[in-house]
């Protein structure tokens, strides 16, 4: 009798643990939601002073002069957009090439694995190392190049930052593209081959159209990375809030991105408006990267479910 009671007690305590365990699982998932909601609320509340006093015009204001309490985010918006899109334009042909090579030409074997691992390694190297290397190796080269084409030879600036950024974001689009191209149903390809298409024609008129939206999602994910990338850009972009007037001056001259200005000036900010102006940049950055990532993820799920 007593043995039976003991067993019953044991199974009651197990049942209790089971409930507790399930509750813990739920709590941990709620933590994920709270982190995101908390981040959003913190950013909005802390950037309230700027939103209230400067309104939407802040984002397009031309001058950033904390000393005289004048804040305008245009230099940083331009800097972020310019570096990110230049990086995307440079990197896209390479990511597509890697995706096509690994997804279609060479899907197995040591060479394919080697390239795949090397590309993944590009994403693994910390961004501070890219920045540090770029500052001491790439910048002098860019300076020589700038002297040759006849623009002010700063070396650091939007152009250098974009170059390093372009390399850094390749893996995101490349690895997604690879797996999507591998998923193209072979009857489609075989049909095209049977009609006498060459390999190039199969890629151009079967594989690429079939994977188009997926490849676009890969580019979006890369863009999300590029927009928020901080350290490499902070070291390479030259950190000036006064940008040139012509496109050539802006592109080859030093600048600032939203992320780099936060990294540089957040610890120097000495009054509320300055603080909240920087935090509003963080809010914009958060918002934009979230939207881009969610659109990208949505396209991918839609695509892989089909």
């Amino acid at each position, binding site marked *: 009798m007593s043995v039976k009671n003991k067993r019953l007690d044991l199974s009651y305590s197990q049942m209790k643990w089971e409930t507790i365990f399930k509750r813990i*699982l739920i709590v941990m998932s709620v933590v994920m939601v709270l*982190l995101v909601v908390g981040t959003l609320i913190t*950013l909005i509340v802390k950037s309230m002073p700027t939103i209230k006093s400067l309104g939407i015009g802040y984002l397009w204001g031309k001058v950033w002069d904390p000393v005289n309490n004048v804040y305008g985010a245009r230099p940083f918006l331009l800097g972020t957009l310019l570096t990110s899109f230049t990086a995307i334009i440079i990197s896209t042909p390479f990511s597509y090439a890697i995706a096509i090579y690994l997804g279609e030409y060479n899907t197995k074997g040591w060479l394919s694995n080697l390239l795949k691992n090397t590309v993944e390694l590009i994403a693994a190297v*910390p961004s501070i190392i890219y920045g540090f290397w770029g*500052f001491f190796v790439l910048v002098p080269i860019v300076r020589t190049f700038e002297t040759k084409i006849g623009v002010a030879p700063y070396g650091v600036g939007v152009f250098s930052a974009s170059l390093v950024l372009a390399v850094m974001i390749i893996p995101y689009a490349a690895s997604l593209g690879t797996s999507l191209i591998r998923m193209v149903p072979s009857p489609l390809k075989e049909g095209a081959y049977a009609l006498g298409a060459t390999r190039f024609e199969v890629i151009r008129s079967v594989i690429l159209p079939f994977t188009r939206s997926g490849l676009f999602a890969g580019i979006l994910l890369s863009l999300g990375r590029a927009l928020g990338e901080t350290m490499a850009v902070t070291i390479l972009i030259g950190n000036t809030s006064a940008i040139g007037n012509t496109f050539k001056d802006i592109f080859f001259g030093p600048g600032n991105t939203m992320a780099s200005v936060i990294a540089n000036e957040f610890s120097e900010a000495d009054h509320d408006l300055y603080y909240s102006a920087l935090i509003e940049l963080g809010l914009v950055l958060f918002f934009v990267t979230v939207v881009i990532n969610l659109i990208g993820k949505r396209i991918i799920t839609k695509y892989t479910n089909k």
Partner: protein
Amino acid sequence: MDARIKLRNTKSVLFKALIIFLAFIITLPLIIVLLYIIKMGVVQVNWNFLVHEPTPEGVAGGGIANALVGSLLIVGMSSIVAIPVGLLAGIYLSENPGTRLAYYAGLCVDILQGVPSIVVGIVIYFWIVKPFGFSAISGSIALAIMMLPIVVRSTEQTLLLLPDSLKEAALSLGVPYHRVIMKVIIPCGFAGILSGIILSIARIIGETAPLLFTALGNVFFSTKVTGPMESLPHLIYFYAKSPYQDQIDQAWGASFILLMFVLILNITTKLITRRWNIQL
């Protein structure tokens, strides 16, 4: 007719050549960066470099012991926070697909994965640094947030791959739910979960931006987790801007050490996933 076929074939061959050229040429920058860091860094590294604190600026000698120990401490503390939370959230997501909470939690994990690291730094500054001051702990929490999405997703993906019959067999024997998860499901997916954890550590060990306003950096050796602490990436950032040549040299050495950490962690992940044949 023959000429046209020839033209199409040539086009196809040329395209292949172009693709191969583009795909391989882009590994060149990576190789150059790696070789350069190794070349500049390896001459800096010796025993003294690893076990000494930095000397005052302009004084030769000194090492990066403060950053090395700081990085390990900060990353260790982040792991202690992020691994249990991420693991449990990942279990929830794989066990309860289709619930409303799973949908929103999954969405938030996706969002967290995309949040720029500098934004995490700002937020932790307001949550922890403002009330308690700059500390290694605040840096660890910032890094833990960066770690979470990777741990959650890899746990979820691994557990989804396990056959349902495993769980059903254990449950039919009358094993309570939490023991099924802890003693059957997790051990079965252990390799996948472990590689996700190692990968997330490899990612955060090089993160600088979240530490700028949290762990702050410290020129002295410190193991006090409630005070500012140096870390490898922060030391590199700090020294990279230095006017003193020997600090720049030391930054190359520190980059080399950091790179080795990252490489070893990544290769370990690769070995685990290959051995157990897991897709991450």
